[in-house]
């Protein structure tokens, strides 16, 4: 087993931001427009604020027990049996997200640039990268994320900037969309947008500066909230809300509009180049989460043999939904209601349990 490799906090930040922003390439802006009309971006913002609250519990837990990831913490607090159950829940969580993301990203590549390729080929390519990356450890993935980070950000900025000629800021009015109450309701239900932050719980022991864990997660969450909100708003002001709620991949449509003079037209394929990196890093992180949650909750010392098996499992599960619409529905509306329960609810419960445990310890000794 390789020696202890540590992740720098900047690299971890980039990884987490990519994890939480990758979904803008899928149907997320459309889902938000469907739920909130012109105030879709507000739903994202409010969901982000709610998730900040949820993050607080996760971060304090990690600070209280440094050098341990959330699975080990749960085993420590709740005992071996309950901890294993919690670990299994995490494992299922990561597994579901990985499979659904794999399916959605593969579909997005097929729809946007490779219409005739069978989905298994694209999934296999992704899986190959995931396997190769995970076998080398999470540090490699974070380094790659940091390496590509600025370019991905630049791609966002270029996409949004160059589609500004078609944008009209007034399309965001009426400002309250469907009304304040539906907005609040939907944003509370959809904090799953930022539930990927739980990966911080898994990679926390590897961060070199343990004191910076809290700030890393916080900054990454804020940055992700900003990116998600800005992109959703950008989509809404380019296509009005009725159009946006009907687009399959809004960012793809945005890049299709980019026209610079006579000769830079129809250049969306270049952006696919950069989306690929986002997709690969996102799935790499989630895949790593799957494997580690399985191996740590069952106390396995080496996770490398699991990699191939998990890859096959994810591939098969990703093919379960019959069609793309089913996948999007599952991911955005049906299953995603449970994500926040796991990624924010479980840390909350653990936090409460840790207060009791502390009190119990204090009273005993």
């Amino acid at each position: 087993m390789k020696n202890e490799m540590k992740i720098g906090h900047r690299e971890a930040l980039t990884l987490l931001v990519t994890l939480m922003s990758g979904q803008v390439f899928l149907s997320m802006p459309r889902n938000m427009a469907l739920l909130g009309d012109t105030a879709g971006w507000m739903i994202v913002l409010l969901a982000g604020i709610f998730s900040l609250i949820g993050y607080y519990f996760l971060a304090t837990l990690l600070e209280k027990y440094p050098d341990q990831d959330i699975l080990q913490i749960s085993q420590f607090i709740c005992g071996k049996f309950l901890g294993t159950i919690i670990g299994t829940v995490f494992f299922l969580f990561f597994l579901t997200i990985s499979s659904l993301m794999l399916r959605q990203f593969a579909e997005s590549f097929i729809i946007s640039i490779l219409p005739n390729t069978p989905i298994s080929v694209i999934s296999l390519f992704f899986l190959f990268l995931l396997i190769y990356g995970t076998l080398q450890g999470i540090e490699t993935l974070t380094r790659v994320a940091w390496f590509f980070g600025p370019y991905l950000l630049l791609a966002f900025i270029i996409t949004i900037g160059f589609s500004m000629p078609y944008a009209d800021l007034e399309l965001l009015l009426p400002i309250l969309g469907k009304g304040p109450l539906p907005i609040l309701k939907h944003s509370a239900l959809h904090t799953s947008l930022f539930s990927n932050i739980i990966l911080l719980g898994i990679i926390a022991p590897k961060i070199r500066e343990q004191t910076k864990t809290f700030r890393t997660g916080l900054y990454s969450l804020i940055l992700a909230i900003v990116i998600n909100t800005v992109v959703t708003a950008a989509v809404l002001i380019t296509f009005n809300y009725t159009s946006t709620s009907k687009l399959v991949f809004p960012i793809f449509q945005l890049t299709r509009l980019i026209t610079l003079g006579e000769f830079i037209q129809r250049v969306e394929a270049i952006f696919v180049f950069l989306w690929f990196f986002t997709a690969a890093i996102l799935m790499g992180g989630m895949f790593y989460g799957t494997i580690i949650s399985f191996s740590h909750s069952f106390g396995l010392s080496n996770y490398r043999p699991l990699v191939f098996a998990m890859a096959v499992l994810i591939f098969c599960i990703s093919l379960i939904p019959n069609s793309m619409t089913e996948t999007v529905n599952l991911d955005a509306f049906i299953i995603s209601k449970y994500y926040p329960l796991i990624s924010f609810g479980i840390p909350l419960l653990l936090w409460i349990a840790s207060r009791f445990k502390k009190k119990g310890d204090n009273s005993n000794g």
Partner: protein
Amino acid sequence: MKRNNIFRKLFQLTSNKPEFSLNADSFNPPHNRPADSGDETGECLTTSLAHNRKTLESIFGLPTNKDVVIRDFTITSLNKKALIIYIDGLSDRNAQNFAVLQPLMLLSRGHLETNEPIDIAYERLVPGQQVEKTKKLEDVINGILEGSSALLIDGSAEAMIIETKGWEHRGIDRPSNEPVVRGPQEGFNETFRANTASVRRYIKDPKLITEIMRVGTRSRTLLALMYIKDIANPALVKEVKRRIKSVSETTDYIAETGQLEEFIEDHPRSLMPQMLSTERPDRVAAHLREGYVAVMMANSPYALVLPTNFAIFLHAAEDYYLRWPFSNFLRFIRAISIFIALLLPSFYIAVVNYHQEMIPTDLMLAMTAAREAVPFPALVEILFMEFSFELIREAGVRVPSIIGPTIGIVGALILGQAAVSASIVSPILIIIIAITALASFVVPNYNATFTIRILRFLFIILAGFLGFFGVSFGVFLITLHIANLNSFGVPFLTPIAPYHPQNKDRVIRPRAYDQPKRPIFLRPLDWIRQRDISRPWDKPSSSSSDEGDDNYEE
């Protein structure tokens, strides 16, 4: 056996002479270790000159081996018989005549009584500037093989090895493969001492240490390990020494630093070079000063600087000799050229075969019109042209210099113009190939160009298979591989990832006066190389940003 003989006789058309064959009956597969040259003797020097002489004759294969010469004489003042033994051609006859033979034979006057003639000779009689006394036969043999002369005196079990090296060699020449416009024009040559001296001229620091080892059991090539003692990380030096020592006995012939590179690098099968091989002493000195370690070998004009990072693809020797805006301009061009050299043909294939909408309409119509006449699909065209370009390149290296220009004409005319006229390739492809080739020459390191050349083919195939998706896949794969590569403990992507804010020399070069710390990733012993205000005459405008680097804890 008998049948074989009959057949052999039947098919011998010329004569009855037994043909030469390597299948000697006495052929014994060797043991696991390569045979040492000095192992079989197990003998040592005795006080008898005749005995020593016989030992040496048997070791060197005299009198058949005419390279080795033994000159007997008598040392007048000691009245003892002596001999020197040396290799003709490797030793300088002037030094031998005037520094060894003449003093011992002619100029030694008087009469000295002694039991240890070698000591007397060492201290009073032999005016050589580098003289070594030894009792070991091995040292004598090594010394002779290096070109020194070994002096043996009757009555002494010690020998004296006198430095008389001198042979025909190439002088210090321009570096042939790393030219710069602005900067020193001296390179290494094959002489070991000239190389180490060249580096010493740049760093006149008493702490610059040259450790000498020998590698190869039969070749006994001299190897110098240079580092600055109070800068270089001792763990790094120790590791390098450990690796070199352990491979020095396992093989019998290590010719050049390139071969050594393969023996001691971390990932020999990877496509990325993990050591910088350079022909320029100024580059070696610049790296030594930062805390790197340099390895030089005799007969090799290339020195190895290790460890290295991705800068091998991007940083050239000239970058620090030019002003900041100019060298950053060059760096920028180099960075773009790397992408062009690696990805342009695959972009072309991806666009032409998969994403045709990206091409502006007029260009597309022109390209389609041109391609209608060509029978091959675009992928075949590109592979064909790339392959022929590699042919031109390789042929250009091997071609005798007299017909050198012919190859240029042949390449340009035949492969370029005629191929287009014969409708084998389309004209836009020639442009793509030409730009790619030019871009690949911009890479400043010979090893690195191979990486790019090989990877280019991989990318072409990936692009032909899945368009931009394939290209992104390839780029991500390569980046994953690089991110994991360690060269002597230093990750290949340093200082981008892991990120060291204080080492600002990543893609863009920082100002020469704004680099107060040495590269952190080497963990050098002495961090500081410049004072904070390194242009004191210009106080208000000089400053050095000093972000705390939290990846390195005190």
